[in-house]
């Protein structure tokens, strides 16, 4: 099992679990990042900046720290 941040560019992963702290789990899942969702890694910003993902029909950006706490298969 690897985390979302490690997903190669333009590859697809299926969300297994969200282990983020604070309130981000709830908001991420409200945005559709729930276990079972399919996401594609679109872009990683340089110097550890946020990543861009494609989820359902739309694009979403989240920080590296959050992406590392989301596990995919």
């Amino acid at each position, binding site marked *: 099992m690897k985390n979302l941040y490690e997903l190669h560019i333009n590859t697809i992963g299926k969300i297994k679990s969200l282990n983020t702290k604070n309130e981000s789990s709830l908001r991420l899942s409200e945005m559709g990042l*729930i276990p079972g969702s399919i996401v594609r890694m679109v872009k990683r*910003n340089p110097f550890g900046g946020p990543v861009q993902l494609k989820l*359902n*029909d739309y694009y979403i*950006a989240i920080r590296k720290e*959050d992406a590392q706490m989301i596990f995919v298969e």
Partner: protein
Amino acid sequence: MINNTFSLLGNPNCGKTAVFNLLTGLDQKVSNYPGITVEKKVSSVKINNSIITFEDYPGSYSLNPQSLDEKIVHDTIFSWINSTAAKPDGIIYVADVTNLRRNLYFCTQLLMLNIPIVILLNMSDLADPSSIVNIEKLKKNLNVYEIIPFSASKSIGLDVLNDTMSNIILNNEKFTSHNIPRVSPENKKILTPITKVINDNFSFSNSFVKYLSLSILSSNSYYKNLNCSENVKNKIIEAKNSVLNNIDKSMHSSLETLEPDLRYGFIDEILDKSDYKDSKEVESLTVSEKIDNVLTHAVFGPIIYIGILYFIFQSIFTYASVPMDFIDGTVAAFGNKVHEFMPEGLLRDLVVDGIIAGVGGIVIFLPQILLLMFFMIILEDTGYMTRITFLMDKYMRKIGLHGKSILPIMSGYACAIPGVISTRTIDSWKERLITILILPLISCAARLPVYVLMIGAFIPQVYIYDFIGLQGLVMVIMYFLGTITAFILAKVFSKVLSERSNPTFIMELPPYRMPIGRSVFKQLINRGKLFLLDAGKIIMAISVIIWFLVSFPKIDGEYSSINESYAGKIGQAVEPIIRPLGFDWKIGIGLITSFAAREVVVSTLSTIYNVEDEGNEMVNLKEAMSNDVDPRTGNKVFTPLVAISLMVFYVYAAQCMATFAVVRTETNTWKWPVFMIFYMTALAYIMSFIVFNGGKMLGFY
């Protein structure tokens, strides 16, 4: 005729504002001005024989608020639940049809409200809704009042919407409840302790109590949003803990997604039954993504961003000068005409030297403000602003800010007030506060008149290496000075302050879209109105007061000389304090009047020199200033060094009281605005002192 209310709700980026602007036309009263607690836009229109009031609320992803904007929506919806009178007649839920599944999430939370819901499938010009979902089936499965394919940019669906609203008004009592997500019996049992506390302390409908219990269980902080005593809040926490104790620890993380799981399960079931075709796979490359490959490219992205910024500021200085010269000429001609036609006397002096000179000094900046606002609206409406946020997040974090601080900071170059308000989208309190604290250091459009006047009058137009104009360079330095100080202080504040911080950044990157001309135009008109009417009122009043203070007391029926006037007395009283910065008492009066708004210093100086000048024509302020000689020393009052010292003072000084009033409402305490006034005044005095005395030592005086 009875007044009926419809509320517009929906996700951010669903095109809600464009729908509101289409529904309400140009003639509207927009109340999105600072100082109003509830940030909503209201406008009344006559449709099919009834007056309908539309209320536009900030976009929200969920009823569970993560930002202040969403909290406003949350609190409004609770006020509807608590009082039937506050309820709107209907909700117009705007959903982006190209992203239907996610857009329905917030809608499922509104289904519990027992208010008729009309769903607009917006962006129908980009994708045919009937090819995505069977609209009739979707309507039946959700049991909402109506679902209408809509396009705000192409005005599709407007007639159907108008008829639907008329129907709702006529059949008010025939409301049938919507289909809502069902909580499973096991989960109901788990939730029991929380449900009991809610039922004991609130009078909500059954389905709503279930929703609340879910939210409380899913979120660590949701209960804080409830309007109840600390005692009840403690009971809620107790109940939540007792629920958690009954469940195995390994399951706790899945509890956080309990509500989203339930709602998406419901949405997927409904969409399945409504022949939903999830046409776009995650693999597919949209046009927006292709554009993003260039615009948010690791190397080209920042270069393009800087290029766009350069283009915007270059255009503002280049294109604004034509209408500005025109306004300048018109105001002067108008003043002279009025002078000719009015009988001699106090009233004429008041009108020409007081009001026309004062207000004219301000209207002239309208073109620049409108141009800057225009570019800001375009950047936002196309979707590029969110890309800048994405691109800059890492760098903004380095200096203690948030990616979303970029928009307020860029607005800050126009005016700090909309900037402070737009910090509401920053979900982390600490980063939001720091953004507010440093915002007034960003040189706003009101400083521009001061820079333009001082540079035009005292900085010679010479060229360095034949192509860098000295005047332009000084201007750039002033902007740079404010911005760089703001960033340094942001870093300092982030180290010193111990406010609560929420280190997340979750941002939708909406597809690039063509801005709708009508919507852009309307936002501009509103901006212009606010500037002319609200700021204009203050400026007009101050101009009259200044005119009075400079013209009186009269000695033997004649105007006294300006140093004997009230204003002269006040200026001379503060002069010892500002003398070390190189300022005389006339500038002192300007500094005092700048508390109303910075640009007032220009109209103040304009009024002072107009009154002082005995002649009938309106004086040229630049000439009058450069010819002014201090009678005590025989030296010129203004030298290039004084002008630079004054500009540096304006870069830092806390002057616009309206900004601090807004900071007071946004931070809910006087602590922060008072702190800002202190640190900014100290900074202004110290920096000006260094510039003036350093310059003198180097022999520039």
